[in-house]
């Protein structure tokens, strides 16, 4: 890892579709050098996936997202890792974070309806050994996601010509 790798990661985080040729000009290196760097970042498990930020509400999709807070009893020998791994296997689970404070895990889940999510939480999550308590909060609106301000228009009024 050097400064150029850091910059590649920063740029990909902003725009994962940035052309390699652009990165090459920005970094003042050859395109093949950029391709090699990206490949080794992937290989090292640093660059995990290049993805997109989508405003589903703008798309008119009525998916429901919830934030699920869990209190758990750590397992002997495994601590929190065993429960986290069990949670992680479910495709409905988008993120899992271990936190300080009164709840141990914060889990985000997306489903097609509240009924579907309720069923999933009750049947699949609450029944995991070691899960003592759940609190489910419905996401009402997403204002900012991965640094993108959803509620704010990208274009602002600007003069066409100023000196």
């Amino acid at each position: 890892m050097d400064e150029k790798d850091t910059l590649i990661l920063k740029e990909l985080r902003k725009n994962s579709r940035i052309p390699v040729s652009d990165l090459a000009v920005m970094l003042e290196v050859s395109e093949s050098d950029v391709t090699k760097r990206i490949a080794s970042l992937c290989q090292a498990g640093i660059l995990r996936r290049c993805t997109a930020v989508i405003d589903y509400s703008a798309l008119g999709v009525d998916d429901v997202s919830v934030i699920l807070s869990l209190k758990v009893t750590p397992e002997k020998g495994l601590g929190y890792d065993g429960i986290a791994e069990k949670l992680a296997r479910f495709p409905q689970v988008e993120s899992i974070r271990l936190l300080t404070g009164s709840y141990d895990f914060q889990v985000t889940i997306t489903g097609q309806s509240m009924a579907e999510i309720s069923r999933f939480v009750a049947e699949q999550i609450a029944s995991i050994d070691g899960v003592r308590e759940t609190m489910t909060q419905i996401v009402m609106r997403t204002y900012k996601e991965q640094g993108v301000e959803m509620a704010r228009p990208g274009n602002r009024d600007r003069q066409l010509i100023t000196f």
Partner: protein
Amino acid sequence: MRNFVSKVAAEIPPSGIRKFFDLVLTMDNDQVISLGVGEPDFDTPWNVSKAAITSIEKGLTMYTSNRGLPDLCSALSKDLEKRYHTPYSPNEIIVTTGVSEGFDVAVRAVVDPGDEVIVVDPCFVSYKSEVIMAGGKPVSLPCDAKDQFKVTPDALMEKITQNSKTLIINFPNNPTGGVMGRDDLKAIADIIIDHDLLLISDEVYSELTYEGSHVSAASIDGLWERTITLNGFSKAYAMTGWRLGYLCAPKEICDAALKIHQYVMMSAPTASQFAAIEALKNAEDSKNEMVAEYRIRRNLFVKGLNDVGLPCHIPKGAFYAFPSIEGTGLSDEEFAERLLKEQQVAVVPGSAFGESGVGHIRTCYAVDRAKLTEAVRRIGVFVESLS
């Protein structure tokens, strides 16, 4: 009824190129990609905006002292010393309503009718008109693409007469993006001193310097005592609409400028001054991020321009590229008009910035990368259609 318009106002040339700007006004904003602006596309850092909002909430909405908030003048004094090694005490600084006002005040503080004022060319559109309004005689000092648009000692010597009193420079330069380094400034410093000239140095793009750090003219030996330094918050902190700049000069000149400032402006906008204090204290990271982004865009954009056949030197500062369009066979005004009509890309004809700008266009890369890429593509299509 008599004609009430003063002779000075009647005779002052309108800024830029009337016909082209009339055309711009007829265009649909949504269709046009504009590379024609002279301002950052970023928002003012939020903590800076919030400082102004808080000052308004607290009711701090009166005039400030003419010179500006004492806290701001002290902060500027420290900042200038640290950043550029230019020692200005707080009473050698005036906070102005943008560099535009600072420039006006500076010119009126030092120019007498009949004085010859040597003005770097190409330059920001207001310089020569300001000199004329003060009764001075502007003398263009041409800067050439082959010298990366720097002022050369030879070109300067050629323009000096016994009536020369003041030299106006602006580096990093609008519209060329040219920069004068320490050696370049030293090379003209002796001439300035030998001919007992005053230097007005507009350094509003100082923080937008991409190779090495900015060298302030007043930091060159022998220049501080004969320099008025102008700078502001618009470009570095994305604060164009806040209208806030500052003028720095040795006390005697600064006191003269302060008299004019207090009559014409009273004081700079108060909320903006509170924002400026926050900008100096806590916006270094935001500024560095913006500058890093401009640098990336510059590299992409200038390569793109050269690739589509518009030769352009790598500008070392500001956020403008100033390619030559002479190879297309069009005048810069025709080029800009047709590019706007045929490919919906707005640029500014170089001749708007003076005789040395003829045959060039000013393109601003303070535009997001996707738009820049599309603009280069459209310019390429246009240039191709001419051959």
